[in-house]
């Protein structure tokens, strides 16, 4: 593991005491698996134990979901994931909308060995499923973005540690999801999480958090309510305890589908819920749960810093390359994000190649990306909640060389935030819950809109696909949402328009009756044609939708059918 001298960049460097904890956890799970295999534990008893170690029983095999806390990986960790894909799976892994990675072909007997391999590089699958606090997600441009107030990964790590094997909150009514943004510009869909935190400056320059609670997607999409405009850092853990206590005590447990925090918030009403939280918070001994600056600093000190020393002409060098190579220029324009340091830039490695499976990466790609991260980005890789990978700290004068290396790996598709940058759940190809296969329709759409000029002409547009109402593909908060439904044993797709996951969060509205796959793709084409014909200059899809109304689109596209 990373020695004390070289800390991993952008993520928490485990200390020996943390590694011992992980090894204990592996030993515990190894015993639990042995008790299950010997029949000592029933499947009913074993299920919540394996779920809290990320192990699901899917259609064809066990699926292991490995935590990637706040979406950051070191090169060594990514190489280990490649090794696991190669040895224990079928040579690939699937990056998820929770910034985690899933392996779909796991044998129960081998799961403890995989966890032991992960522990060696400071990784685990703790609380990646089950009715507990799940992986804390954050911004894929954290620590690099020009518009950031603080690096949210430090506080995400604090929340990760605090929530790990929490004695009171490990058997909640249902799963519980946090997201945290260090930028006032919400890139984490904070209002669609059980708790969403957005860093905000206080009056005296101190940093605190705007607190949202009760948001979520799934069967009952809801936009979180604002509980606090500004919560001081030192009260962060005490306030989280208060929210979780109210949820653990009062959240419904009689109906799986009504057990999330959002349902409790709706049932009590926002004022009554907020009052309960504040009453609980008032009674909590603040000193006992105080998150002092010394704790924050100690955890921050375990994060390695990127090496930032670009030559003064780096930017000029990049500009020159862009002028000379239009394909490179297009990729930079589409797939990069500004960096706070002069001469640096962040880039998105698209995991959405033409007709590919969104979010999938092969072991070969993972190894190659680890090498490139070490060469070009301080050894740090980020997983985005849109199922792409990001290299955060690339020198502008080295970007061209990086791009040339990415092309042959199939990782230089210039489609970030465009119509083929599709978010997609595993669907009926893997999942026991799904009604429909979401991957094939994603591939068809990707093929239909593969033309680069057409994608650029359409501009930023998000398509999200969920294979069932549980909404793992986040179809509710996309410009075009696609939901797989079962119609008398046939796979159909229902379309929604006008959703948004950012500041002006909105839930998409149903366009019309559900359609078979090929017709759904045709209707999407007509929706796009309608948008292109009716938009005013520079108008985004969501704005056109709001201006004309979903009914207008319905009449335009269904009438033509």
């Amino acid at each position, binding site marked *: 593991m990373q020695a004390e001298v070289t800390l991993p960049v952008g993520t928490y460097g485990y200390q020996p005491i943390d590694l011992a904890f992980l090894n204990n956890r592996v030993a515990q799970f190894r015993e639990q698996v042995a008790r299950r295999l010997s029949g000592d534990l029933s499947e009913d008893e074993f299920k919540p134990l394996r779920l809290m170690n990320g192990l699901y029983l899917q259609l064809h095999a066990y699926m292991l979901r490995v935590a990637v806390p706040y979406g950051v990986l070191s090169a060594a960790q990514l190489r280990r994931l490649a090794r696991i894909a190669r040895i224990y799976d079928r040579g690939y892994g699937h990056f998820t909308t929770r910034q985690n990675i899933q392996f779909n072909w796991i044998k129960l007997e081998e799961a403890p060995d995989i966890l032991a391999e992960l522990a060696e590089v400071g990784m685990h699958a703790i609380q990646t499923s089950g009715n507990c606090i799940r992986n804390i997600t954050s911004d894929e441009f954290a620590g690099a973005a020009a518009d950031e107030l603080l690096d949210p990964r430090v506080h995400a790590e604090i929340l990760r540690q605090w929530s790990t094997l929490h004695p009171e909150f490990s058997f909640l009514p249902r799963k519980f999801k946090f997201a945290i943004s260090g930028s006032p510009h919400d890139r984490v869909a904070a209002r669609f999480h059980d708790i969403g935190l957005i860093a905000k400056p206080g009056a005296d320059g101190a940093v605190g958090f705007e607190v949202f609670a009760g948001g979520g997607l799934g069967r009952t999409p809801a936009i979180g309510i604002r509980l606090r405009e500004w919560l001081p850092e030192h009260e962060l853990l005490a306030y989280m305890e208060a929210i979780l206590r109210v949820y653990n005590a009062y959240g419904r*447990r009689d109906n799986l589908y009504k057990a999330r925090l959002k349902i409790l918030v709706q049932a009590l009403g926002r004022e009554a819920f907020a009052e309960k939280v504040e009453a609980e918070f008032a009674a909590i001994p603040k000193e006992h749960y105080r998150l002092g600056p010394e704790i924050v600093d100690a955890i921050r000190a375990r994060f390695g810093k990127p090496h930032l020393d670009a030559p003064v002409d780096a930017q000029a060098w990049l500009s020159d390359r862009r002028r000379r190579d239009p394909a490179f220029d297009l990729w930079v324009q589409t797939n990069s994000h500004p960096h706070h340091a002069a001469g640096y830039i962040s880039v998105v490695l698209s995991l959405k190649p033409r007709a590919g499976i969104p979010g999938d990466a092969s072991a070969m790609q993972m190894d190659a990306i680890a090498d490139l991260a070490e060469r070009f980005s301080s050894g740090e890789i980020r997983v985005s909640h849109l199922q792409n990978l990001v290299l955060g700290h690339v020198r502008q004068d080295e970007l061209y060389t990086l791009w040339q290396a990415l092309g042959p790996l199939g990782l230089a598709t210039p489609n970030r935030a465009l119509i083929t940058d599709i978010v997609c759940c595993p669907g009926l190809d893997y999942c026991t819950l799904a009604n429909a296969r979401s991957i094939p329709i994603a591939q068809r759409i990707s093929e239909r809109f593969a033309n680069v000029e057409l994608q650029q002409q359409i501009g930023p547009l998000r398509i999200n696909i969920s294979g069932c109402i549980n909404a793992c593909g986040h179809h509710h908060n996309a410009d075009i949402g696609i939901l797989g439904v079962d119609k008398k044993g046939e796979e159909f797709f229902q379309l929604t328009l006008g959703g948004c996951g950012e500041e002006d969060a909105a839930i998409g509205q149903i366009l019309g009756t559900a359609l078979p796959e090929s017709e759904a793709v045709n209707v999407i084409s007509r929706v796009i044609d309608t948008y292109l014909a009716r938009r005013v200059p520079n108008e985004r899809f969501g704005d056109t939708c709001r201006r004309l109304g979903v009914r207008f689109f319905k009449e335009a596209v269904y009438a033509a059918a």
Partner: protein
Amino acid sequence: MPLLECGRIVSDPWQTLADDAALPSGPCIVSLYRLQQDEAVRTAPHLRLGVALPVDQPAEVLAPYLDRLSLVAVNFPTFRDGRAFTQACSLRERLAFRHEIRATGNILPDQYAFLLRCGITTVETQDGADPAAWQKAAHRFGFGYQPSVLEEPLVSGLRRVIALDR
């Protein structure tokens, strides 16, 4: 049923009293209903009194009676239902209850450290339970990454010592 305390099976002096049963002279656990309705129970001299807190009630319903109580039993209808963890935490932290908190119902040894850190002191286990398995579960992790309702020595950062005996 065998009663577990500090990882060992101990004798259980408490009996659970039916709502219509006469008051015994020894320690007894009554229902919340009887505690609230039967003044004779609350005023019986020298009677060691415990109450079974229903899982759907907040711990605060016991606030008027805490001076009179030597035991609160919290219940796990299934081991997946974690409400009793919050009830126990509230009893310790908000209501400053200092006596025995007993866990009853369907509980796995794997949950033992969680129970202890929420302030639960005794566990009703199933017949034939192996205390070694419970002890092992409690000792599994030497520290936790968060404050609990107990006074636990700080290791470093957020880490607190977990100890079975206290």
